[in-house]
């Protein structure tokens, strides 16, 4: 009895530093954001309480809804692009072959490069005048396919999505590879004895075995897509005319460029709510399937 009590305290004190850090960098700032979000504040002069005015203004702002739409677009293309691409690469590399380590490194490389570099590199690829993409199109006789990839309103968001998928699918590849390697060899052997090989084995045995991992990555991919900021900020700055602007850029512009910290905080609270809602929907759907 005595010793058990001692252990409880030890556990408490052992967790305390982590708890304090977590409270300090996660819970307290969320609380502060929520507090600022009901204020009108330019950051310098005293705050004025305005109730839900910021929220009603946000909901009435067409540009905000445009940024929500853009976030949803990035989220959907992210899920549809990153997970299958990551899974495909993982299946490809999850076998004994020469240079597997090399290819895994190559696949993972975009994740390690900073977003700033990724944005600058892809900015050059998409460049209208001397960009690689347009040059390739010209050199293979598809002159008419040349586009102003980042400057044309109908292409810019798609171009950004492609970069976003490219940047992240390596991470998903590594997660899937880890999951694939955890599948017991007996299962694989049994499947092969029963005549399931190649594509059939992947679809019927391997993928169902790592279903849990796929769900986790889906949740990760969603929450990731609501946070995307630097990539777009550097490539287009949210332009032209807001067509590539996402909620985080909208928040940044209002809070730090227009000095409306209350309004910006309200947007950040909404970002949190939106991603919580979408993630909980995914979790619910996943549970129903399990049942």
């Amino acid at each position, binding site marked *: 009895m005595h010793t058990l009590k001692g252990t409880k305290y030890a556990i408490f004190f052992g967790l305390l530093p982590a708890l304090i850090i*977590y409270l300090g*960098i*996660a819970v307290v*700032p*969320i609380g502060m*954001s929520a507090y600022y979000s009901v204020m*009108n504040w*330019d*950051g*310098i*002069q005293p705050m004025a309480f305005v109730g839900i005015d910021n929220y009603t203004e946000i909901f009435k702002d067409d540009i905000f809804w445009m940024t929500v739409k853009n976030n949803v677009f990035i989220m959907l293309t992210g899920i549809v692009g990153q997970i299958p691409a990551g899974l495909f690469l993982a299946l490809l590399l999850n076998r004994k072959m020469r240079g597997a380590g090399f290819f895994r490194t190559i696949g993972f490389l975009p994740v390690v490069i900073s977003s700033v570099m990724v944005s600058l590199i892809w*900015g050059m690829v*998409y*460049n*209208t*005048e001397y960009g690689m993409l347009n040059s390739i199109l010209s050199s293979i006789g598809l002159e008419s396919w040349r586009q*102003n990839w*980042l*400057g*044309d*309103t109908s292409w810019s968001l798609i171009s950004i999505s492609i970069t976003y998928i490219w940047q992240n699918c390596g991470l998903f590849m590594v997660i899937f590879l880890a999951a694939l390697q955890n599948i017991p060899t007996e299962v694989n052997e049994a499947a092969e004895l029963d005549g399931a090989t190649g594509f059939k084995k992947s679809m019927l045995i391997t993928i169902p075995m790592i279903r849990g991992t796929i769900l*986790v990555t889906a*949740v*990760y991919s969603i*929450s990731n897509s*609501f*946070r995307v*900021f630097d990539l777009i900020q550097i490539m*287009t*700055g949210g*332009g*032209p*005319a*807001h*067509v590539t602007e996402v909620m*985080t850029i909208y*928040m940044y*512009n209002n809070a*730090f*460029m*227009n*000095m*409306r*910290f209350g309004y910006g*905080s309200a947007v*950040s609270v909404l*970002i*949190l709510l939106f*991603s919580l809602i979408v*993630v909980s929907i995914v*979790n619910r759907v996943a549970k129903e399937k399990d049942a």
Partner: protein
Amino acid sequence: MRTSKKMKKVMLVGTVALTTLVSSACGNGNNAAESSGDSGDKVTLSFMHPWTSPNVDNEVYKARIAEFEKTHPNIVIKQDGVASAQYKTKLRTLAAANSLSDINVVWPGADLQPLVAGDLLLPIDSEMANWSSILPEDALAGFNQGGKQYAIPTKQTFVDIVYYNKEMFSSIGYEAFPDAYDKFIDAVKKLKEKNITPISLGNKEKWPLQSSILSTLQERFVGSDFLQKVLNKEAKFTDPQYVKALSVIEELTKLKAFNTDANNMDSVQAQDYFIQGKAAMHISSSTVDSRIRITNEEGDKFGIALMPSVEGGLGDAKKSAGVVQFGIAINSELDEKKKQAALEFMKFFVNEELYKELISKGVVVPAKVDIPEDASKYLKEMIALTGNGTSPVFDSVIPTQITDVMQNGLQAITVGVSTAEKVAQDVQTALDNLK
């Protein structure tokens, strides 16, 4: 699953918390400087400025700081150079966290207003005798609020200088820059026919169209007092004459006067484009003259001009849109010892010497000092061009939030998703809703 939720929260909040962290970190830097100042005889002053790129004037400023430290061994200037594109954001964020540097570079008018309202800057009226003989009142006006002076400018920038390629214009039959708007449009069309990009524009950062092009059109169509009238609610952006000014950008877009990637290029890339002879005109500030002409071996190829008059315009075709820049201001919360040191620095830094050095490097200054013999012919030409009165720059008068709506609207016009009428309406609505 729990961990992933936690992670997400942490990351999300990170975005918001980042700036707070950055600014509080800078605040700590300040405190450290203070304590070291108190402990010994040395006073350390932090100085935040946007002089990081290798411009001629930046070199003058830095040499001046070095000179000060040499002659004042008991005062240490701790410089915090921030790239100019991010400077205003950092200044505002630090102001919000109440941790401005001891000495700061500030912008006049609409940008200065919140800093003054928050009592963050030291009024320097008692020191003005140092500058009254060389700085005319209109050079100081932008840094004067409520009858008090808060900063001293170091340079004057005209934002609407049209740089043009003389050879290209002569190839379409214009030996001089067009002197009327119709001829200007005619030149654009002729350049286009010859497959030359008429105007190189780098509008990714969204300010060039607003600052350099709209400001000049505004002067030509509605005159210098229009923006103030709009703020006083005596005029509206939706007035037909102002819509006409905006529709010039619509017309230029339809004529494909700008390079196709105007919205993906930054202003420096657009300068390069022009210097390399890929476009016939570039509309930008007097600051870039040093790149385009003064330090450029082939500088003679390029001429400077102002946007010509328009028929029925209410403004003055000789006026150039300009602002005084780089006001040196002192933090209001310094202790006596640091305050004296900061004032000492200010007196040394901004004086006749500085203005003369800037002039001899080809930079226009707001002070009345004799132009030295060795000043470049380009500078003399610039001073002659811009010496016929100054008209306001849009974003130096109009509050930032409204400028943001205007900038996005102008960008929307250039990609064909908005019209002059709609942008005028949006900007006016934003102004009406301003709290």
